[in-house]
């Protein structure tokens, strides 16, 4: 590596008095004083949430209004702080999506335990659980901080679906084919 010898100049008298430096510093701080402020005043102004943000985990429905969760409980197993608790249940025989067979009877996420790691979303084979853009989760009691199934669907809403996996499966069965 090339060595670049730097010439160390002795300080001039003005520099040794330290006063020109202070004047320059005062100029800098003055510039900051008059410059527009950069603070985001939170409750009134909200930050723009970037795509891919990992906010509060939610359950979503597909565009046809079918709840996507099939209560496989993978998220419950993978959840590092054990924040998720699922009570599996069946689907009524006469329901339009009876062939999906399973759905959660109750689904609870304890937001006091959740660490927003997103592993539940990553592990979900049905793309049913999503960490969406809500970043503020507050409550007055511990019970309030547990999101039940109704609340999770309310928070999650409907997300667009790229696959319609169960519809295609049903169509394939009806047309006599095996795998779709």
């Amino acid at each position: 590596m090339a060595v670049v010898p730097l010439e160390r100049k002795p300080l001039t008298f003005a520099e040794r008095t330290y006063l020109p430096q202070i004047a320059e510093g005062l100029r800098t701080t003055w510039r900051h004083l008059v410059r527009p402020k950069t603070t985001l005043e939170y409750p009134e102004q909200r930050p723009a949430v970037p795509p891919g943000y990992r906010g509060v985990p939610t359950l979503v429905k597909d565009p046809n209004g079918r709840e996507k969760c099939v209560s496989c409980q993978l998220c419950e197993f993978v959840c590092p702080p054990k924040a998720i608790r699922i009570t599996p249940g069946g689907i009524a025989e006469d329901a339009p999506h009876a062939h999906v067979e399973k759905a959660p009877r109750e689904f609870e996420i304890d937001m006091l335990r959740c660490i927003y790691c997103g592993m539940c979303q990553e592990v979900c084979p049905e793309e049913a659980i999503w960490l969406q853009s809500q970043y503020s989760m507050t409550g007055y009691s511990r019970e309030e901080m547990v999101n039940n199934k109704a609340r999770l669907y309310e928070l999650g809403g409907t997300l667009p679906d790229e696959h319609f996996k169960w519809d295609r499966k049903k169509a394939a069965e009806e047309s006599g084919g095996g795998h779709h």
Partner: protein
Amino acid sequence: MIDLYLSLHPVAQGVLKGLAVIMVIFPIGGICSMAERKVSAWIQGRPGPNRAIVPWVSWIPVIGPFLQRLGLFHVLADGGKMLFKEDALPGHVNKFYFVLAPVVAMMPALTTVTTVPFGAYLDAAGRVVPLGLANVDIGLIAVFAVGSLGVYSLILAGWASNSKYPFLGGVRASAQLISYELSLTMSVLPVFLWINAPGTPGTMSLARAVEFQSLPGFWGGMWFAFLMPVSALVFLIALFAETNRHPFDMAEGESDLVGGFHTEYGAFKWGLFFVAEYAHMLIGSGVFTLLFLGGWNPLPWVPLATLVGWLAPLHPLLSHPLFVGLLSIGIFLGKVIALIFFFMWVRWTVPRFRYDQVMEIGWRKLLPLSVANLVFYAAAIAVIQTR
């Protein structure tokens, strides 16, 4: 009303005047603490405290939100918090001196006000009469003598707290204050050498210093800051050290001493230290303004009397002593507040010195500089005034 006031016993008049001054100093101290937070915030790119508001003020359309943004009501909130907090007294302190220290801090801060004139009015003969609690001849000496008592509160607080960091803070503060008092005193001597010309009655009065900056002519109207820049500079630097302000913030360097001498204090006792610090800043800035920035004269070469001469033809009320008095107080306070803003501005510009640097600057830089300055001006004044 003026007649009623003049008919009172002089002692009653003095008490009223004193109360009036204290009633001004306390709110200014509170507003300064607020201004400190605001200026700090602005320099750091934040809006600063802007939440507290009294409901009936927020109903005023434009002014209410503006005052809220300005954080004016945080002064009330802060002061109220200070009053109603639990006033904890640690078990390991020396109780009597622990309680005494904040009181001792307030006393010199409020006592020095008496000899600092803060305005002037023109009497019927057109002479400028200074306004102040006591326009005494010892003026500045009284300020220095009583002001230097402030160091005892720091020593008392540091020692009575009976714990390590407050003690170190108290020791540092006392060493620093004593070191810089020398240069502080030396730096103002040229001013008074110039004022006390041979054959004139001797005085250390601050009002007299202002009078000397209001004389006609190029040299007469010049503020002492231009006439004696080195004196002004040394005085200003020593003032920063004396008031324990950044960059000489040794007594309460939070990175190495937690809170310094007031680590063990809380609630109103801590608040008293705080107000005393701002009162010291106010008095110090006031003395600097009087000595070097022309006191109540609006501009260099434009004394108060000239300004009143310009205003008088416009309206008879404008030359009324009451208006002139208020105008001069306004000019004086404006300069003082500008200086206090400068204190805050410097706080965020210059990083804190190390303790050995503080001692180095005080003893090996400022003191020789102020002595050389004194010798130079003594010789120059001797040549000019004996000619």
